[in-house]
């Protein structure tokens, strides 16, 4: 399945891109998505394995199983206000 991954702020700068389509086996979790991204090496590998994740615009545990078409975002530590 294909997952649309969004990257913001520090993670986007590390990855050098704000958006990525990632192919994953059916039933893959958010944690597996993070691992797949990190395994690209370089700046990608500097994204922490425990990065916070949002699935379809809601914070979700890394154990969350993903589905085709999900919008997943890697969320660096937040600093609004």
């Amino acid at each position, binding site marked *: 399945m294909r997952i649309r991954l969004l990257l913001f*702020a520090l993670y986007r700068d590390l990855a050098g891109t704000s958006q990525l389509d990632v192919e994953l086996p059916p039933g893959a979790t958010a944690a597996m998505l993070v691992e797949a991204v990190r395994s690209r090496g370089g700046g990608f590998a500097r994204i922490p394995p425990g990065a916070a994740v949002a699935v379809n615009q809601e*914070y979700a545990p890394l154990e969350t199983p993903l589905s085709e078409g999900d919008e997943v975002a890697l969320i660096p*530590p937040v600093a*609004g*206000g």
Partner: protein
Amino acid sequence: MAVRITRDAIDPAAVLTRVGASEHGAEVLFLGVVRDHNEGRAVASIRYEAYEAMAERVLATLVAEAEARRPGIRIAAVHRVGELRVGEVSLAVAVSSAHRPEAFDAARELVEEIKRRLPVWKEEHYTDGERRWLDGHTPPVPEAAR
């Protein structure tokens, strides 16, 4: 709309008009403003970035939670994104309530929650030309379902 992520300058008076009611005797407005220094460094501007669609949903959730904690109060909240110069308003939170303690408490708590949970980041641009993403808070994520 009482909750918004915006690229436009925030008008504090306009945010205040989103709250108030004939049974409310107190209104509290909080403004977050870009300062000219942070951690000893001279700041020229801050670039606020947001996961905008999600941030607007999260902000609506935080406001709804805050209103539910103190039934009867009214809240408006606006967070700005983009590059803000020193003195510009990044965040406005307005609360009205029957009596003043709950307006003060709700405003303060909501600002804390926004800093903890809103998917927004800030990159400080220093007067010496350097820039840096500020350290932030790891947002609370729900437990995995069993």
